C-alpha cells in the first residue's frame, strides 16, 4: 500500500505553459491569478496513489506483465528495453478537484482555466514525488522516465486493465469510463521501468518523447519545458 503523499506547491511557470502563455509573457495580474488558484487547489485536492511491482517480458507485440496483461505497441517496448520489472502506479487528486473546476467554470472561465491547469501541474508534481518514492524502493536500479497510456502507440484502452491490476477503484477511488478516460479527471496511470543495469540516454527532449504526436505544446510551437 502506498505511503501518503502531499503536494505543497505547484510550479507557476508550468501552469502558465499549460494555460498557453509563455511564463516570461505573464504579467503580475495573471501570476497573481495563478498563485491564488494554486493555493485554492492545494487545499481542495486529496492526492492518493497505489502501485504494484510487476515482472515483465518483451514480446513481439509489446510488453507483457506478469499477470498476463499485454501492453501493446513498439514505443513502450522500446522504452522498457533493458527492464525486467516495472512499478505500475496510479495517482489522483480526487473528485473534489473536479467539482472545484466545474464550479469555477460557472463563474469565471479565466479562473477555471487557471485551476484546471494548476490541477494538471499538481498531478505531474504528484507523479514526480511518487517516482522518487518508488525509485527509493529499488536501490541500485535504473529507471527510464514514467510512461503512460496515450503516449506514443500505447493505447488508452489499457487504462481500465491497469486500474484493475492496482485495485484502484477500491484502493484510491479511481476508475475509467467506457472511453477509457480516467475519473476523477485529474489522474494518471503510469509504468515506471526498473532496470538492473544502466540505461542509455533517458534525457527528456521532444524527439525522444513518446507523447510528441498529440502534444499540445508542440502544436502551439512550444514545448513543455522538461
Amino acid at each position, binding site marked *: 500500500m502506498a505511503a501518503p503523499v502531499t503536494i505543497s506547491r505547484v510550479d507557476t511557470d508550468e501552469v502558465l505553459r499549460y494555460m498557453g502563455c509563455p511564463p516570461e509573457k505573464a504579467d503580475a*495580474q495573471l501570476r497573481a491569478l495563478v498563485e491564488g488558484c494554486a493555493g485554492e487547489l492545494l487545499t481542495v485536492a486529496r492526492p492518493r496513489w497505489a502501485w504494484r511491482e510487476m515482472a515483465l517480458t518483451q514480446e513481439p507485440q509489446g510488453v507483457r506483465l506478469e499477470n498476463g496483461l499485454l501492453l501493446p505497441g513498439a514505443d513502450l517496448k522500446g522504452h522498457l528495453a533493458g527492464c525486467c520489472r516495472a512499478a505500475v502506479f496510479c495517482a489522483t487528486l480526487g473528485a473534489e478537484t473536479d467539482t472545484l473546476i466545474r464550479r469555477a467554470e460557472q463563474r469565471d472561465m479565466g479562473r477555471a482555466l487557471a485551476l484546471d491547469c494548476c490541477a494538471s501541474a499538481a498531478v505531474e508534481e504528484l507523479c514526480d514525488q511518487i517516482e522518487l518514492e518508488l525509485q527509493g524502493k529499488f536501490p541500485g536500479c535504473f529507471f527510464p522516465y514514467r510512461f503512460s497510456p496515450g503516449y506514443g502507440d500505447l493505447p488508452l484502452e489499457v487504462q481500465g486493465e491497469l486500474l484493475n491490476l492496482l485495485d484502484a477503484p477500491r484502493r484510491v477511488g479511481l476508475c475509467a469510463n*467506457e472511453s477509457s478516460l480516467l475519473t476523477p479527471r485529474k489522474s494518471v496511470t503510469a509504468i515506471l521501468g526498473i532496470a538492473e543495469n544502466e540505461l542509455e540516454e533517458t534525457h527528456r527532449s521532444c524527439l525522444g518523447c513518446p507523447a510528441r504526436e498529440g502534444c499540445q505544446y508542440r502544436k502551439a510551437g512550444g514545448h513543455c519545458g522538461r
Partner: protein
Amino acid sequence: MDVEALLRGKNPVILDGGMGTMLQAKGLKLGEYPELAALEHPDWVKEIHRAYVEAGAQILCANTFGANREKLRRTGKTVEEVIPASIALAKEAAAGRALVALDMGPTGQLLEPTGSLDFETAVDIFAQEVRAAVKAGADLVMIETMTDLQECRAALLAVKENSDLPVMVSLTYEERGRTFLGHAPAAAALTLEGMGADVIGVNCSLGPREMPPLVEELRRWTTLPISIKPNAGLPDPGGAGYDITPEEFAAAMGELTKLGVKCYGGCCGTTPEYIALLKQALEGRTIRESERGPIPAAVCSPNTVVPMDRVRVIGERINPTGKKLMKEALRRGDVDFMLGQALEQMEAGADILDVNVGLPEIDEGEMMVRVVKALQGVTDAPLQLDSTRPEVLEKALRVYCGKAIVNSVNGDRETMEAILPLVKKYGAAVVGLTLDKQGIPKTTQERMDIAQRILDTALSYGIRREDVYIDCLTLTVSAEQEGAAQTLEALRRVHSELGLKTVLGVSNISFGLPARPLINQNFLTMAMTCGLDLPIINPNMGEMMAAVRSYHLLMNIDKEARDFIAAYGGATISTSITSGGGQQVTAPGAGERSLSQIVESGLRGEAGECTRKLLDTADPMTIVDDILIPALDKVGADFEAGRVFLPQLIQSAGAAQAAFEVIRQTMPAQPEGAGGEKAPIVLATVKGDIHDIGKNIVKVLLENYGYPVIDLGKDVDPEEVVRAAEKHHAPLVGLSALMTTTLHSMEQTIALLRKANLPCKVVVGGAVLTAEYAKQIGADFYAKDAKQSVDVARQVIG
C-alpha cells in the same frame, strides 16, 4: 432462520470475513478473475464458506462482489452463469446453518457527475444481478464497499424494484470520515434509511479501531441496525497485509457493542480465524439500541446534511415565473444559467435551493433531470424539487442524490395519493400546502385541519413525521389584508400544536405595494417568531438574509454572534428606505478606466459597474457595437499575432461577459429574436468525453459575439446533437473531443448529422485534432483555438 429474526433478536449478528484474500491464499493466480472462482475453483469457494460457517458466521456473502455485467465483460461469462453458481455454493456450504447474501459491489465505473455512467444504466446493471440472485434463492442482498452514495442508491433501488429481499447497505470511508468522493456517513444514513435499507454500515477501508467515529455519526442519523466489516487493521505500509492480529481484531470489535453495533464481520485480510475469535468475544452479549435519540428533521446532499435546528433559507430564484432571462435559458436548454443562479444564492447564504423548471413549451421532466444532475455537479446544497406534476417529481427524485424536499402536496386526496408514495419510495421530505380543492381556507382552524389531514395521510404511507413540512400559505396583503395575521396564527399553531416544521414563501406578501423589501423583511421576522423554519426567499436580497441572521443572533442560536459578525463586521448597513424608490448607484472608486481598457485588461470585477454607469448616458447597442466588440476584436487580433495568450483572451472574454450581463438585464422588454439576434450555434463535447473546458471557453467567446449558444454539455449522444441542430435550426454545430479514444464519437456524430441531411456546417476542435484529421472525419472546419471558432462563426453565420 431469517434475516428479520436475526435483526430483531437481542444478540449480535455474526457475518463472514474476507473472500478475495482467502482465494489468493488458496492459490488463485495473479491475472485470474476472482469473480469466476465459483466456476473455476468451486471447491475452494465451498471450503472458504464452510470455514466461515464453522467459525460462527450467520450470514455468508456469496462470491458475487464483482459479478456485474460491466466487470464480467472481460471474462466472457455472464451474470446468469456466475451468480446462480456462486449462490448455490454458498447455500451448500451453509447447509441451513447460515443465510446467504447476494454480495453486490460497485460497477467499477464512476457515475455522473464525477464519472460518466448514467444513473439508470447503473440501476439496470444492479437489477440484472438482483434478478439472478432471486432466482437462485438468495436470502438477502448485501450492497457493500461503495464509495459513491449515488451508486448505493442505484443498487438499493434495483433491489427494491426487483425483489422483496432484505438489504444491508455499506459504504467504505477514509480516515477523515468521508468516502473517496467526499460523501458523509450522515448523508448515507439519512438517504438510505429513507429509501428502505434494512441495515446501514461501514466495511473495508479501515480497521476496527477506526470504526467508533463512523459508527457514532451513523447512530445520530439512523434508527436502523448498524453493521461493520472492517479490514484486518490498516494496510501495512511496508507491503501487503494488514496490521492487527485476530486477537486484537476481536478485542477491538468487542468494544463496539457499547455503541450498539448489531452486525459484525470482516473485510480484506480477515480469515475464519478472525471470525471465530470475534464470535467468542461477542458471546453472550446483548445489543442495546435504546439509547439512540430521535433522528432530527434534516435534508441532505451527499456531502452536506442540513438539519432543521435553526431557520434554514430556501433560495427561490431557480423558477421561471416572471423571469424573462430564465425562460429564455430554459427554451435554449441553457442549464448554465440555472447553475449561476444556484451559486449566487449559495454565496448569499441559502441553505437549500428550490428548483422549478416548469414552462409549458418545454419537456419539464427531461429539463428537471438535466438541471438536478448539473446542480449536484457544482453545489452541495440540498434541493427542493418543485413541480405540480408527479411524473416530473418522480424523475427528479430518482436522480437526486441525497434526501430532497418535494414541493408539494396539498390536502386534496388525489394529489396526496399521486405524490406521497413517491416521497416514501425515494425517502424525501415533503411540503404540505394548507389548501385543497376548495381553495385556501379562510380560517386558521380549517388550515389546521388540512395540515392534520396531510400529516395523517403521510404517516399512513410510512413517511416520518419529521419529514412533513407544512406551508400555511402567504396571501397578498394588498388584496386580503386580514390574511397575514391568519397565516401567522396558523403557522404558530402548526409549530406548537402539531410540532411540525413549517415552510413559507414570503415574497408574495407585498405584491402590489410600495417598499416591498420593507414589508417582506418584517413579515419574515414575524413569521420566524411564530416558528417558521424554512422561509422560501430571495437570499440575494440583503434585507432578507439580515432578518434571518438577526433572528439567530437575538434568539441565542448564533452563539457568540459568530455568523452575524462574520457577515456584517465592518459593514455599514442602511436600514432606511427612501421614498420615491429609485435605486441609488454609488460611483465606484476605480471609475477612471474606460470600458475598453477594462475589457482589454480582463478586469472582470470592474466591467459590470463600469457598464452600469455607461448605460446612464449611452444606448446599450452603442456600448456593444462601439466599445465591447471592438475591444474583443483587438484582443483577438493580439492573440493571433502572439502578443497576448490564451489566459488574457479568456480574461477579456470574462470581462466582456460581465458587461453583457448588465446590458442584458437592462433590456428585459426586448422581444425574442428582435435586435437582429443571430442564428444559434449548437456546442457539444462528444459522447464518452468528459473534458469540456475548451468547449466552455469557446461558448463564452461565441456568446460575447452575440451568438446564442445551445450548449449540450459533455458526453453527448450523437442523436442528441442531431436533435438540437434540427430543433434550433442551427447553421453551425461545434464539437470538441480531447482524447484519441473519443475521436470516433466525433466522427459518428458528424456522420449522423450528414445522414439527417441537416443544412448545418460542422466545426471541430480539441487537443488531439489536426486539420487533416478534421477533414478526414467530414468536418467543414477545424478551429485550432477558441478565437478561430469565432472566425468560423462569422464566416458561416455572419
